[in-house]
C-alpha cells in the first residue's frame, strides 16, 4: 500500500508552487473537500434508502436505529483514529471490548449494579490500553505486534472468564439505557454518549496541545522528539485513550445487547480502521480527522441498514464495503495536495 505522505501540518500551505492545486481547492481547503465528499456519499445512500424503502427508511425510528447501531463502533473508531494519526495501529480494540464487556457482566460485578458495571468496563479498557502503551512505548515493540498479542490474549481471557457462556445482564438500570423510555428528546442515550465522545475527540485533536503533539509524532517522530515532545509518553497516552474508548463502548454494548459474551466486538478493529481510512486518516500517520472517521462509521452503518431493509444478504454488503474503501482512498489520492 503506497500512501502519499504529506509533511506535518503547519508547513507552507500558502506558498503554492506554479503547478499547485486548482483555485477552488485552495479556497475550500483539503479537509472540506473530503468532508463534502463523505457527506455526498452519505446523501447518496440516504437517497437510495429513501427510494428503495420510503416507509421503513425515512422514519424517525430508523434514524434512531442507525445512530444507535453506529454508537458502539463509532466510539471505538474515535480512539483508533487518534492512534493511527500518531503513526500507530491498534488491532486489539475488538478484543478489549469483549474482555471489558464480559468482565463487567460477571455475577460478582453485577452485584454492584450500574456503577460496578460501568467502573469495571472502563477500568478493564484503560488497563488493556495501558499494557499496549507500555509494551509499545517502553518495551520498544512494534504497535502491530503488541496489539496483535493483546487481541489474542484479551479474547482468550474473555473466553476463560465466561467459559463460552452468555452472561445475561440482570441490572435494570443498565438495560434501561437502551430502552425507548430513556430517550432524551427522541435521542437515545447511547447516541448522546457517541456525540459527546465525537465532540471531545474533535476538540482534543484540533484545539489542544495533546492533539498537535499527536499529529507531530505521526508526521515525524524524530522531529517531534527534537522539538521537545516526549514521544514515548505521548504514545502511551494514545493507547490508553484507545483503551478508554473501548471501555466506554463495551459498557454501551452491554446495555444494548443486554449481555456480555466473549464474541462481543467481533472484527471491530477492521471496521474501525476502515472507517478511519475512508474518513481521510493516513495509515502512515501525521494526518487524520475525527469527523471523517465518524462519517465513515455512519456510511458503513447506513449501508448495513439499507441492505437489511431491502432483505439483501450480507455477502453483497461486504463487497459494497470493500468497493467504498477502495473508492474513498482513490478519491483522496486524487484530491491530496501535491506540494
Amino acid at each position: 500500500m503506497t500512501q502519499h505522505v504529506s509533511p506535518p501540518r503547519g508547513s507552507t500551505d500558502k506558498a503554492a508552487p506554479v503547478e499547485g492545486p486548482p483555485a477552488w481547492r485552495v479556497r475550500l481547503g483539503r479537509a472540506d473537500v473530503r468532508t463534502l465528499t463523505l457527506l455526498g456519499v452519505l446523501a447518496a445512500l440516504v437517497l437510495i434508502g429513501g427510494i428503495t424503502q420510503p416507509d421503513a427508511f425515512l422514519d424517525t425510528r430508523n434514524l434512531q436505529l442507525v445512530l444507535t447501531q453506529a454508537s458502539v463502533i463509532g466510539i471505538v473508531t474515535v480512539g483508533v483514529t487518534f492512534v493511527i494519526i500518531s503513526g500507530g495501529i491498534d488491532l486489539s480494540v475488538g478484543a478489549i471490548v469483549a474482555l471489558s464487556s464480559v468482565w463487567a457482566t460477571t455475577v460478582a460485578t453485577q452485584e454492584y449494579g450500574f456503577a460496578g458495571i460501568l467502573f469495571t468496563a472502563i477500568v478493564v479498557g484503560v488497563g488493556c490500553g495501558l499494557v499496549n502503551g507500555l509494551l509499545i512505548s517502553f518495551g520498544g515493540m512494534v504497535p502491530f505486534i503488541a496489539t496483535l498479542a493483546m487481541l489474542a490474549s484479551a479474547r482468550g481471557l474473555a473466553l476463560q472468564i465466561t467459559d463460552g457462556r452468555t452472561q445475561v445482564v440482570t441490572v435494570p438500570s443498565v438495560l434501561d439505557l437502551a430502552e425507548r423510555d430513556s430517550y432524551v428528546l427522541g435521542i437515545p442515550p447511547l447516541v448522546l454518549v457517541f456525540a459527546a465522545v465525537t465532540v471531545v475527540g474533535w476538540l482534543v485533536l484540533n484545539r489542544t496541545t495533546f492533539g498537535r503533539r499527536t499529529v507531530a509524532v505521526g508526521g515525524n517522530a524524530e522531529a517531534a522528539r527534537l522539538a521537545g515532545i516526549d514521544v514515548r509518553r505521548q504514545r502511551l497516552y494514545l493507547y490508553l485513550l484507545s483503551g478508554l474508548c473501548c471501555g466506554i463502548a463495551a459498557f454501551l454494548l452491554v446495555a444494548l445487547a443486554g449481555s456480555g459474551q466473549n464474541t462481543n466486538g467481533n472484527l471491530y478493529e477492521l471496521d474501525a480502521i476502515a472507517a478511519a481510512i475512508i474518513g481521510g486518516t493516513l495509515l502512515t500517520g501525521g494526518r487524520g480527522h475525527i469527523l471523517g472517521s465518524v462519517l465513515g462509521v455512519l456510511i458503513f452503518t447506513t449501508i448495513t441498514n439499507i441492505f437489511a431493509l431491502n432483505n439483501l444478504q450480507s455477502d453483497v454488503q461486504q463487497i459494497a464495503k470493500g468497493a467504498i474503501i477502495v473508492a474513498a482512498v482513490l478519491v483522496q489520492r486524487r484530491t491530496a495536495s501535491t506540494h
Partner: protein
Amino acid sequence: MTKLTSRRGMLFGAAAVSAGAVLAGCTSNDPDGGDDKAAADTQPAADDKPGKPVTIGYAGPQADHGWLNAVNDQAKKRAEKYSEITMEITEGSNDTAQQIGQIETLINKKVDVLVILPADGKALTQVGLKAMRAGIPVINLDRIFNSPQAYRCWVGGDNYGMGLNAAHYIGEKLKDKSDAKVIELAGIDNLELTQQRTQGFDDGLKNYPNIKKVARQAAEFTVESGQAKMAQLLQAQSDFDAMWNHDDDQGVGALRAIEQAGRDDFLMVGGAGALSAFQAIKADSGVLKATVLYPPTMAASAIDLARALGQGKGVSGLAEFEIPSTVTCYSAVVDKDNVDQYMSTGFK
C-alpha cells in the same frame, strides 16, 4: 453376499418368530433357545448393569460457546454413570494440528473406543482413519468426517429437521390465518448447517400455502449480531406473524431488540435449546413460544454407544446385534407443554 442373505434370512425369521412369540405370550429367557427364540432375546444389548471395563478416549473442540460446554458436560456425566467406564479426556482445542496431536496421544494410549467431536470435520478425517486402522473404533460426534471409513458410527444433530419442525410448529399455529407472514433470522450464512436449516424451514413452509416468508437475514450466532440484525428486521417488517431464529444464543440479542422496539405482535420459535430460552418459554411472558432442539444429549448418547461398542453389544431396545452406523438425533419442538421435561438439558 452369503453374509447378506443369511442376515436377511435371519431377520425375516426373527420378525416372524417374534411376532409368533408375542402372540403366544412367550416370555422365556432361556439363552440356549433354539429356532423358536426371538433374535431380540439372544441379542447382546448394553444395559445399565456393569459390563466389561471400557476405556473411552474423548476429544472435543475448545468449548467456546454454551452448546459445546453442555456437550462436554453431558459426555462426562454419562461416563460417571457407569462404574466400568474410564474416560481419557483431552484439553479441547480449535486448532486442527493441536487436536490431531491430542487424538494421536489417545491412539498411542490404546484406548478401547474414541469419541471425537472435531473442530473441523474435514480437516480431521485423516486422524479418524488412523485410529480406525489402528483398530480403535471411532464414534464421530456431530461434525462429520469426510470419509465413512474414518468412523464406525456417526452421532449428530438434524439441521434440516430443525428447520422442518420449526416450520411445522409455526404452520400449525398460523393455520387459520390467511396471508400470514413469516421471517427468518439465520445463523452464519457460509456454514453448510445454516443452509440445511433454511432448506428445511422452506420445505416445511411449502405445506402451508397461506404462509409466505417475507424476509431472511443472517446473524453470526452471537448476542451482539442477533440484536443488530433483529433490530433491522423489525424496522423492515412492520407487520409479520411469526419468526424462526436459528440459534438461542443469538436469540438473547434478538429478544433484546424485540423488547427495545416494543413489539409483541408475533410468535417466535428459537433453535438449539438454551436454558434461557426454556425459561422464557416456561414463563410465557414474551414472544418466544417454542424452540427446536439441537440436543447436547447427543454426547451422552455417544458415550452409551461407545460403551456398547467396547463391550461388543448392540443397543438395548433395538433388535440389532451391533450399534448403528449413524444416529441422527431428533430435533424435538419444546414448548410450554413439555419444557419441564427438557429443562435439565438446557445449556447456559
